[in-house]
């Protein structure tokens, strides 16, 4: 099969690149578009460091052949603070010291973004489930789970104060 042009909306920008059949979304993001926040950890779906959002859902970008999502909307960590302002999840990670070496952090934050969009007030069990596909070998997970619960509270309060709907995606719809 021949290579084909892939068109994606990445972090609100229309992007195109040429990909050989079987090219992963992760490879497209990192190697063709230069977006290196999503990490290539195990490259076999085991570690979650490559997590990005495709049409709002958290996916393992290392396992997704990019030609199967041609036309999709993709959000990576680069798109979370596109205006230079950290969002609630990033701020909560920073304030709660929920990183150490930092390699898992982009995937953790994207998994958390997907969770908070479908559930603005998650309990600890729901947080654990949301990041159960993301490995962290430094922190023991507790600071990360605390940060996500804290981020949810910050976002609920900020959106309530602004009179916005609880879910970011409801604004778009």
């Amino acid at each position, binding site marked *: 099969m021949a290579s084909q042009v892939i068109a994606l909306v990445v972090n609100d920008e229309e992007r195109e690149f040429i990909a050989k059949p079987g090219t992963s979304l992760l490879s497209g993001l990192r190697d063709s578009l230069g977006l290196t926040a999503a990490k290539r950890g*195990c490259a*076999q779906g*085991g*570690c979650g460091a490559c997590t990005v959002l495709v049409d709002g859902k958290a996916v393992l970008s290392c396992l997704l052949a990019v030609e199967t999502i041609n036309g999709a909307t993709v959000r990576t960590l680069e798109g979370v603070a596109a205006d230079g302002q950290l969002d609630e999840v990033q701020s909560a990670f920073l304030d709660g*010291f929920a990183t*150490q*070496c*930092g*390699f898992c952090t982009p995937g953790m934050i994207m998994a958390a973004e997907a969770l908070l969009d479908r559930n603005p007030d998650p309990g600890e*069990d729901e*947080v*654990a*489930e949301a*990041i*159960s596909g993301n*490995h962290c*070998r*430094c*922190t*023991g*997970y*507790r*600071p*990360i*789970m605390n940060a996500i619960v804290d981020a949810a509270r910050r976002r609920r309060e900020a959106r309530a104060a602004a009179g916005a709907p609880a879910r970011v995606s409801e604004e778009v719809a």
Partner: protein
Amino acid sequence: MAMLRGRGYASVNYPTGMNLGGDPSQALIHSTTMGNFVVSLSSVDVGQGLKTVITQCAAETLGLPCENVIIDTADTDTGPHCMGTFASRGTHRVGNAVIMAAEEARQVMLEVAAEELEVDAADLEPDGTGYIRLKGAVEKKIHVSEVALAAHFKRGRTISGRGIFLKEKSDPVPETGEMDPDSCQAHACTVADVEVDDETGEVRVLELHNVYEIGRALNPAIATQQVEGGAWMGMSHALFETTEPYYPLRDHGPASFTEYLIPGPADIPVQESVFLERPAASGPYGAKGIGEMTANPPIAAIANAIFDACGVRVDTMPFTPERVLRGLDALRSGDRAAESTSS
């Protein structure tokens, strides 16, 4: 059938570094034209936070803000020699080398400042905000950026320093076995609370309480993370991880480190961590190493807690449900000889 609770305790003494055939680390430091200080190393930060702690050591010694320190490391072609990141040695060895280098650079910085201010260098001190001030006359001051510019373009001085920390080789005395293998020892203990399901053999760690005596915790946030992340790894060793198959054929077991089971976010215990700070004479600002020891005491504490909960003395890691059940079966059948689960 019941969920059985138990509590266990274990302690560890852990050496900081080793003497090998002599164990050195070096640091070089120099000022840029704008008064930032570049610390050149070949020591590796693998995510444990060495660069952060070394930045603190350099800034503290220079008397400057951390923002004025740039760590340039991990290129062994160009950096001064370091034995490496192992044996819980990084903070201790590299910290001492950086302090030595920063002391030399600080002296030159003060000498140049003294020439600029036309005072005696011994009467000057950096104030921690970027200024060097005359003691007792705080309005007489000069910013480090002006000192650096003067050194480079007016006075022809390099504001720089060299540092090395060497743990000398120590051979055992043949008659007594006595030797000096490490620089200091850190101490810790962990108390584990577990729950054992006597029907399935599953063990759940409910709480880990950690107390660490590590000299001085140079960065308490990183030290706490190291203790609790390390305890998580210890729990993982105790209950989950093995590359050896549980069943006779190797095909049935994980073959590499990417495949074996480790605890996820739903498996974590509540943790509490406390530091006792007793600065070590040989350590940088009193610090001892904390790297490797943190995975040790949870393992034995969990084994002891399992014994306390259900009477099974597990002695082979990981303490899988199968091994716990075999131990329970042996207890129930009254077969004392088979009580050990090591077979």
